[in-house]
Structures are given as structure tokens and as C-alpha cells.
């Protein structure tokens, strides 16, 4: 690593509408280093990357290349300055040959014609430097994603050669492929390239990177050399709660529990290790874990959205079959999905209809709730959850995010559920509604409901959970109960040890 | 049902045996026939009549159904050439793209006769073509009406074929030519019935309503029999008598119009004969016997049928032909 950065960003600001995606973020990339960029979803990683490569223009701050200020119009312009990018989804042309992909737009020509022989020879030579010995005349799509990634990297390096941005390059690779990719990256680093590496696999960061920059809520938390840090430190900084989050209310911890309401035994499916879990009456089981740790997958399995290959489900000790959501609803389960717009609300249907739809589905086709029943139900739950809608006959899509979330909650309360799954119930809603949802969860617990709540907000999970299940790499790696719900324990469980952090 | 059909086929065959001159000249000849398909009743009738005429003349007919595809027809013709047939009949599905394959036939010295439709390209690629004259069909229908009403005033409503199709254009033109010199005949309404019964009925209903419940209409001219059959039903529904209150004249001579004639509900039809093969065989025989090149365009007869022409007999003769 040399003293002068090849690429430097100073005080970058980016605003989308009312949302400040980046606030005065500094970032440097030095020749011959791998610089990891970390942060939770929405922290501003992609925005920063897009500004560094020219896809976005910053609203404030400046970019310097080798000390000279530059303005990038678009990624192609960035490329001409030596800044290349490889994305998670390879964006090359799958139905063209490997060689064509490598030289697309700059084919060597002879007498004005594309010199295919020379292209193929050059492509072979180029890829051999990356340890790839493949038929360069074959279509790109015939090769694995890992090979395609390397081809993409080779192309990006050929085109740019100073800074290489790798945006989640390992997301779809297996362990051996990751190692192969890392070998390539190390070789490039040795050649003096500056490599910016984005991933959510912490072990890979420690494996590969020299320095790390952590973003949270659009602000830079730190930039440090990795050898001064351990995983726990990194997770803590990403989550941002530090050690200061509120202490776990003792009323919940170790308090009296009701009977076991639902029990999942050995539930699993392909790519999802089997798990056991019992949720009691009047208990909230919170789920902590980084994005992509399998939190949502567990919820989908419980609700029958994805059919389980193995395992059994018991409600009040009786076995029930849950092969699809309809059966889950029949068993009294409710599920507020993570993606409210896609899987939750019926935008064009009225607030009233959105509230009664699950109950109606449970009642069947011929036991129709008449209008009076619907109005009464909708009114009752809208009042209980304080859903602010001018009129329950208006389309639900006109409501704010928080009110929509409450409508979905109301939908499930209307079926008088035995077990409620909430996946990120407070995501994307304003502070006021946020607090109300948390209050509602507490109230439901007090009323004896069994709940399973997934959230990225650690303080939130702590505030309402009796127990916390920590997920990592699609497995429930720890279960914290009572006094064991300590911030350090959670953070450590999430981080795991670097050796274990890969499937 | 099958039995009835076979019987009817036999009756039709007998009729044709009587009507066609018996000839031995084609005995033992192998002739290939590439048919378009069976998209209409008339087409099916053409196929069965061709097979009957061939059987009657002792021709070994090789039949190939192209299912509306030119590539299938070209394949079939190549197959015929490879088999070394004596002659080839083609009902071409489209007008263009025949030069290569017909040149191959010509080089193999196999005469080709086009049935029913023409092609674009040099005329020496085929021996002759047999087709009807659609303008003449319209004219024959018009002339019948002129002769029938005499000096009386006659308001005609016309049921046209599909807008823009050549039979619709030509049959309209021929009919208009025939009534042109007669001021007492005029077409007061003309609409398309898409050559179908149900549209024919619907359009006729509209005409009847618009023309004082039918009181102003003296005759209906339909571009095909199917529309006429629909119109007859509409006239009956309006409480009028088709055939007497309103005259019905149409074109094609399909079996159902003859049963309407038997019931006194239709007055005249002009035949579009499905027997294109007969004149084709005649031309081939003359060519082989005398070496005489036939005319390039053989026009089939557009024969007029009225209730005086034994409609029951015509019905029976045609019923089995696949209309």
C-alpha cells in the first residue's frame, strides 16, 4: 500500500427526494489494497459505489483521481479514467463467445474486418493470466457463474486497470469458486490495483481485505485497517447500537410463560438446515441476524409459503399439516411479510377488504361476510390499531406505509390467530407508527398471543422479545433467554467466528 | 351416420358416372394431385369429386393434402416427380413461389394442370389451368333475376362476401353488369355477411327492419349459398315467405340450397363446380392422344339451377361430396 490514494472521495453527499442517502462520506482507495465496504442494507453502500463509478452524480463533495478532481458522466466515462466495476449479476452477453465478450467494442480488426483469430488468441492469453484455460470460442453462458465473474473481471481490468469495484461478486458462488476468485483478486492486488470489495459475508472481508469502511444510515462510521478489528467490533459498528442499547426489560426475561402454543420439529428443506423451535402462549421469539442469514426463509417455511421437505408442526400439541399458506391460515397462523407491497397489500382493494380478506379466506367461499360484518370488523381493528384512513372504502394503496402495515396486522388479528409471524414489521415506516407497532406487539404478547418477530433493529427486538434466536448462514446458531439477552452475546452470536462464517 | 354417408356417396358417384362421358384413354395413368387442404365444404367436395372422376376413368390418383402450406405442396410435387407420375394436378395455395418446382416437373416432362386458382409466373410452366369465372357467376345470377322479374320494379338487397376478397368483388361486379341496363332493378342495400350463415342471417334481419319489415324488398342476392340459407331463416322469422315474398338467388350450388329449393324457399343458384378435375383430365387425354396443347385457361361452366332442375335429385347427388 502506498501513501497516495489512487481514488479519493471527499465529503460526498447524495440526496434522493427527502432522503439523504449519503452525508459527507469520505472514502479512499490506495493502489495495491483491497478495501472492503460494509454496512447493513440501506446504509448507502450501493449509492457510494455508484458515485465512485460514475453511475450517479454526487449532490456534494468531490472525487479525485490520483489527486486531480474529476467529474464522471457515466460508468463508461469512469472506465476511461481506469475505474471498472463487476456486479453480482454478470452483465455481459451470455449468448456471445467468451472472446467476444472480452473484446466487445474494441475488437482487433484487420482490413476493417474483425480479426477473429487474433481475438481468440488474445483472449486465451489474457485468461491464462487469470488461471483460466477454457475454450474462448464457446458461448459465455456455457460456463459457471464463477468463470463468468472472472471473465467480467478480466474485461474490467483490461478496460480500466486502476480501480476495480467488486459489488457482491461472491453471492452466487460456492466455496471453491470463491477461493478461485480470491486468488485472482490477490494477484491483481499484487499488481498494484486498488480493489473495492462489497459483500455481506464478514469472513470473506477478513480473508481478503486490508482495510474496511463501515457505513451506517448514510454516514461513515469508520475506516480502519482490519488487523486492528475483530468480527464482533465490525458487527457492532454495522448495527450501530454499540453497547448502549437499552437493557432488556426484566419483566420479560425468564418471566412466566404459557403453554407451548406451536412447535416446529425438524422443519427444513433443500438449502435450509432443519430446525426445532417452540413458541409459547404470551411469548415473543425475536430473530436476530444479518441480512441473508435465513431469517425470512425460516418464516416462509413456518407459514408454508415454501413447502418443507422434512419436519412436523404441532399446534397445542396436535400435529397439523402446513404445506401451503391456506393450511397455515386454517391452523390460525398469520404472517406479515417483509415486502409489504409485493406480498402484503391488495393496493386496489379497500382498507375494509384488506382487513377482512384473510378471515374471508379462512371462512371459505360460501360463508361470505356481509357488508355490515365487514364494516364492523374493519372499524373495530382500525380503531384498535389506530389505522388512520379517511374512509375504509378507499383503496389501501393511498395509505402511508405505516398505516398499510397496520392494515396487514389488522388482517391477521381479525382471524383471531394462534401464532403470528412478523417479518420486519417496522421497515419503511415513520417513527410514530414504528413506536405504535412496537407497542402493539407488546400488547399482543400480554394478551397471550405467540409471536415470531424478525427485525434488523436490534434494540427493537430486544424491547419486545422474551427469547432471541440468532441466525447465521441459514442456521439457528444461538438462543438467548432471560438474562442471557445481552448485547455482546447477540453481536458475538451474529458475528460467529470467521472460520464458521461460510456455508 | 357413416352408412348414410356412404350410401349418399354412392348416389353421387352414380350421378357423375351418368353425367360424364365414359372414357378409357386415361386407363392406368398415374396422376398426382396436390390439394390445398379442406378449409371449406367446397374444397372437400372438390377432393371427393376428383377422386371419383379419377376412379371412373381408371386413373391411379396419388392424393396429397398440403394443409394450407405451400412447402407441403412443393414437397408433394417433388415426391410425385420422384415417383415418375404421368401428370400432376395442383390447387395452388398461394400465387407465387412455384417457378423452381414447376421447372423441375417440366424438365422431367411431366405436364402440370392448375386447378381452381392461378399462379404468377411464366405460362409455359404448366399445361393449362382450370378455373371458374367469378364475374360470370355473378352475371348468370343477375341475368336470371332480370329474366324473372321482367318489367316489374325490383329492389334488391345484396349480401356480400368478405370485404376485399376476390369472389366478393367479382361476383358483385358480374351481378351489377347484368342488371345495369334495367332501370327497374336496383340494389338498395349491400352489406357484408362474411360468407357465413350466421352473419347472413344477422345482416338480412337488419335489412328487413330497415326496409319496412321487408315490404320494400323484392329479392336478395347472396354471394354464396351459406349466406342465402341464413337470409332465408331471417325472412321466415320476419313472417315473410322466402322464395315468393322475397326472391332468393345465390352462388355455389351447395346441397343445403337445393333442400331450400325443394321447400320452395330458394329460387336460383349458380354452380361453382367442384369438378375441376374432369376438364383437366379431358385436356390431358387430348394432349396425350393428339399432342394438341390445350388452351391456357379452361373456364368451367357456371350452370344455373332453379327449382325446375330436380333440386331433390341435385341435393342427393351432392350430399355425399363433402360440402
Amino acid at each position: 500500500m502506498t501513501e497516495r490514494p489512487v481514488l479519493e472521495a471527499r465529503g460526498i453527499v447524495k440526496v434522493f427526494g427527502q432522503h439523504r442517502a449519503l452525508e459527507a462520506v469520505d472514502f479512499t482507495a490506495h493502489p495495491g489494497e483491497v478495501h472492503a465496504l460494509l454496512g447493513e442494507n440501506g446504509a448507502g453502500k450501493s449509492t457510494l459505489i455508484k458515485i465512485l463509478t460514475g453511475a450517479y452524480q454526487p449532490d456534494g463533495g468531490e472525487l479525485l483521481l490520483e489527486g486531480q478532481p474529476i467529474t464522471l458522466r457515466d460508468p463508461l466515462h469512469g472506465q476511461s479514467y481506469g475505474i471498472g466495476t463487476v456486479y453480482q449479476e454478470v452483465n455481459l452477453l451470455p449468448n456471445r463467445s467468451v472472446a467476444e465478450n472480452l473484446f466487445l467494442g474494441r475488437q482487433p480488426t484487420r482490413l476493417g474486418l474483425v480479426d477473429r483469430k487474433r481475438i481468440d488468441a488474445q483472449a486465451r492469453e489474457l485468461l491464462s493470466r487469470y488461471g483460466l484455460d477454457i475454450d474462448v470460442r464457446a458461448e459465455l453462458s456455457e460456463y459457471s457463474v464463477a468463470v463468468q465473474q472472472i471473465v467480467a473481471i478480466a474485461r474490467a481490468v483490461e478496460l480500466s486497470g486502476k480501480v476495480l469495484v467488486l459489488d457482491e461478486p461472491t453471492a452466487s458462488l460456492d466455496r471453491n469458486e470463491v477461493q478461485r476468485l480470491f486468488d485472482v483478486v490477490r494477484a491483481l492486488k499484487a499488481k498494484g490495483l486498488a480493489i473495492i470489495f462489497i459483500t455481506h459475508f464478514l469472513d470473506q472481508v477478513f480473508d481478503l481485505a486490508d482495510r474496511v469502511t463501515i457505513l451506517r444510515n448514510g454516514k461513515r462510521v469508520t475506516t480502519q485497517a482490519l488487523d486492528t478489528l475483530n468480527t464482533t467490533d465490525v458487527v457492532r459498528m454495522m448495527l450501530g447500537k454499540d453497547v448502549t442499547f437499552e437493557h432488556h426489560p426484566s419483566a420479560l426475561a425468564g418471566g412466566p410463560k404459557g403453554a407451548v402454543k406451536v412447535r416446529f420439529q425438524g422443519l427444513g428443506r433443500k438449502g435450509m438446515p432443519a430446525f426445532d423451535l417452540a413458541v409459547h402462549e404470551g411469548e415473543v421469539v425475536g430473530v436476530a441476524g444479518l441480512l441473508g442469514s435465513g431469517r425470512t426463509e425460516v418464516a416462509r417455511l413456518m407459514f408454508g409459503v415454501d413447502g418443507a421437505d422434512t419436519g412436523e408442526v404441532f399446534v397445542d400439541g396436535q400435529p397439523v399439516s402446513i404445506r401451503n399458506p391456506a393450511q397455515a391460515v386454517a391452523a390460525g397462523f398469520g404472517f406479515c411479510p417483509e415486502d409489504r407491497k409485493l406480498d402484503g397489500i391488495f393496493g386496489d382493494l379497500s382498507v375494509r377488504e384488506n382487513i377482512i380478506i384473510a378471515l374471508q379466506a379462512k371462512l371459505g367461499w360460501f360463508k361470505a361476510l356481509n357488508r355490515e360484518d365487514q364494516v364492523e370488523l374493519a372499524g373495530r381493528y382500525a380503531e384498535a390499531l389506530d389505522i388512520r384512513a379517511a374512509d375504509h372504502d378507499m383503496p389501501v394503496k393511498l395509505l402511508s406505509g405505516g398505516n398499510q402495515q397496520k392494515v396487514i396486522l389488522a388482517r391477521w388479528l381479525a382471524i383471531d390467530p394462534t401464532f403470528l409471524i412478523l417479518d420486519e414489521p417496522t421497515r419503511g415506516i415513520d417513527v410514530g407508527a414504528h413506536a405504535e407497532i412496537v407497542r402493539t406487539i407488546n400488547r399482543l404478547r400480554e394478551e397471550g398471543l405467540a409471536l415470531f418477530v424478525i427485525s434488523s433493529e436490534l434494540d427493537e427486538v430486544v424491547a419486545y422479545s422474551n427469547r432471541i434466536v440468532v441466525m447465521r448462514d441459514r442456521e439457528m446458531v444461538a438462543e438467548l433467554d432471560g438474562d442471557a439477552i445481552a448485547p455482546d452475546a447477540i453481536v458475538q452470536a451474529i458475528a460467529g467466528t470467521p472460520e464458521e462464517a461460510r456455508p | 351416420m357413416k352408412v348414410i354417408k356412404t350410401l349418399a356417396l354412392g348416389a353421387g358417384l352414380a350421378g357423375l358416372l351418368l353425367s360424364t362421358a365414359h372414357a378409357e384413354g386415361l386407363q392406368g395413368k398415374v396422376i398426382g394431385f396436390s390439394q390445398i387442404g379442406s378449409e371449406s365444404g367446397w374444397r372437400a367436395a372438390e377432393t371427393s369429386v376428383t377422386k371419383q372422376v379419377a376412379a371412373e376413368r381408371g386413373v391411379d390418383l396419388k392424393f396429397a393434402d398440403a394443409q394450407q402450406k405451400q412447402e407441403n405442396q412443393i414437397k408433394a410435387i417433388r415426391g410425385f416427380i420422384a415417383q415418375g407420375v404421368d401428370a400432376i394436378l395442383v390447387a395452388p395455395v398461394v400465387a407465387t413461389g412455384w417457378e423452381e418446382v414447376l421447372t423441375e416437373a417440366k424438365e422431367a416432362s411431366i405436364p402440370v394442370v392448375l386447378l381452381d386458382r392461378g399462379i404468377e409466373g411464366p405460362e409455359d410452366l404448366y399445361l393449362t389451368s382450370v378455373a371458374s369465372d367469378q364475374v360470370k357467376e355473378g352475371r348468370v345470377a343477375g341475368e336470371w333475376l332480370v329474366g324473372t322479374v321482367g318489367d316489374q320494379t325490383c329492389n334488391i338487397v345484396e349480401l356480400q362476401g368478405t370485404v376485399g376478397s376476390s369472389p366478393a368483388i367479382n361476383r358483385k361486379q358480374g351481378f351489377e353488369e347484368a342488371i345495369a341496363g334495367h332501370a327497374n332493378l336496383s340494389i338498395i342495400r349491400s352489406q357484408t355477411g362474411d360468407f357465413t350463415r350466421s352473419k347472413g342471417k344477422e345482416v338480412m334481419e337488419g335489412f328487413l327492419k330497415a326496409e319496412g319489415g321487408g315490404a320494400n324488398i323484392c329479392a336478395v342476392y347472396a354471394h354464396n349459398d351459406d349466406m342465402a340459407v341464413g337470409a332465408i331463416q331471417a325472412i321466415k322469422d320476419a313472417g315473410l315467405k322466402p322464395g315468393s315474398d322475397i326472391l332468393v338467388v345465390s352462388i355455389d350450388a351447395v346441397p343445403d340450397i337445393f333442400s331450400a329449393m325443394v321447400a320452395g324457399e330458394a329460387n336460383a343458384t349458380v354452380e361453382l363446380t367442384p369438378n375441376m378435375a374432369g376438364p383437366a383430365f379431358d385436356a390431358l387425354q387430348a394432349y396425350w392422344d393428339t399432342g394438341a396443347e390445350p388452351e391456357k385457361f379452361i373456364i368451367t361452366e357456371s350452370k344455373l339451377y332453379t327449382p325446375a332442375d330436380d333440386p331433390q335429385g341435385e341435393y342427393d347427388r351432392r350430399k355425399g361430396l363433402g360440402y
Partner: protein
Amino acid sequence: MTRPTVDLRPTTQPPFPRPRPLATFFTRPQVIALAAVLFVNWLLFPGFFSVTWQDGRFFGSLIDVLNRGAPVAILAIGMTMVIATKGVDLSVGAVMAISGATAATLVTSGIPAPIAVAAALGTGLLCGLWNGILVTLLEIQPIIATLVLMVAGRGLAQLITEGYIVTFSDPLLIFIGTGSFLGFPMPVIIAATLMIAATLSVRRTALGLLIEAVGVNRSAARFAGLKAGALLLIVYSFAGFCAAVSGLIVAGDIRGADANNAGLWLELDAILAVVIGGTSLMGGRFSIPMAVLGAMIIQAMNTGILISGFSPQFNLVVKSAVIIVILVLQSPLSARLFRRLPGAPK
């Protein structure tokens, strides 16, 4: 990644279009359009509205519109529900041909007419079920799934009739197409009965709401515990059934099954009727009576063209021009324009 900090409180929202009191019925664009078309017909032909009693039935152009519009109206009843689920059924025209061919072939070979009718309706149900299976179990896009039967179905009908127009003289079949009841033509009676029955059975049960939910958001429907697959099977089967009824009427009307032409392109008229009736091709809210009204608008236009005496070359031009006007009138854009007009209903 964005967390909006401003909670948009629902304050002045546009009034939600349903349910409306009956009084607003006459201000709907469809009703106005129908009135306008009928008015133009009257200008073209002053006797248009005259209805007389003749041979025990009503007789007149208005009755013709109802009678001739009935087959498309019946198709539209089934099509409305399919479209409400965000699907489409292109095969209904071909299913009409199959149904007519089945009934006609059976009665001409001596099977009793009630059995032939039942067989035709059963065949329609099966065709619809087939579409439903392709759409739900095999998850083929509706437009492709039903295209299969649209193409193959007509061939099937031709196979059944062996290419002939199968004519029959069975009184029951003819009665379905041309008979009358209480002075109205049977097709009108059948269409009205089906319309009322279908409307009641979706609105008095939960089916209507559940169908709309599936159409608005199939994924959310699944998450809410709806049996979307079963609903789709029912909806497509019902569309097939409606097509079969329509096919029987068309065959009975001409006393014959014309496999080549029965129902040809009528699927497009049916889709148009549904769209004119205000059901979005994007699925969701639907109205069966409005779709039937849409079918009547189309037929009133056809009849108007017939009696106008225009040359048939203008038919399609006139028809498409009128349709464009109707669709523009009911577009959100014109709704906004109307709202801006002073004195317009808020």
C-alpha cells in the same frame, strides 16, 4: 433502503368508485355511450325504437340488438371473471365451435337433444378446465395457455364435424337459438339469466372479492391464505361453460354447426366488451352487468352500421372510431378533466 420520514396522511382522497348509488348509474360512461349509439341509430333509421308484437314475440331493431348481442354478452360474462384475475381467455371462440359441433353431431346421429346439450356444455367446461390447468398448475401465461386451445380448438371442431356444416332440425337446439320466452328471444333470456345468476353467485358469496384479490395481487392472495389455484380453475371452467352456451345459441340460430366460422374472432369482441364495461386488463375490480352492457354497445354499433346503409368497407373504421371514443371517455385522464370542469360532480 429508503425510510420516508414524512407520513402522508390520507386527507382529501378521490371518492372511491364503488359502491355507487343507483342514481349515478346513468352518468357512467358506458351508459352514456350506449345511449349515444342508440340515438345515432335512431337518427339513421327512425324506426329503430319501434317494437311490435308479432307471432307471440316482440319484434324490432332493439330486440335484434339484444338478440344478436347475446352470444358475445354471454362470452363476456365468463371473460369478465377471467380478466378480473389478471388473465385472458382467447379460446372462447373456438370453444363455441366445439360446443356447437358436439351438440349438432350428437343430435344428427340420434342422441336425444337434452343429452347432446349436456354433452356440449360439459365439453365447454372441460375446455375451460384445461385452460385453468395450464394457467395454474403449469403456470403458463394465460394469453399463451389459451392461445393453444384457440388454435387447436377450431381444428378439433372441424374434426368433430368432419369439415361439413352439420345441419339439424332438432326442435330443442333450434329453440335455444331462435325460440322465445315471455316474448323475448331465447338468447336474450339465457344471457339475462346467466348474467343475474353469475352476478349473484359472485356477489352473494365471497367469490367476487376473492377473485378480485387474486387479480390485484396474486402473491399477496397466497400469503393471505386464499386458494388462488382453485379459484382460477373455477373461473376458467366457467368461461368455458359460457362459451359452450354461446356456441349452442349460435348453432341453434342457423340450425347448423359451422366449425369454420362459429365464434370466429368473437373472443376479441368479448374482451372488448369487458374492457368497455370498465374491468381493467390488469385485473381486480370487475362488473359483470357492465360487461354485458359493453357487449350491447358493440352490438348496437354493429346493428347501426347494418341499417345505416354505409358501404361495408367502412364497418371496421366506424366501429374502431366509436370504440376509441368510449375508451378515451372512461380513461383516468378524462375523469380528471371532467373533475376540473366547474360544476362537475366532485
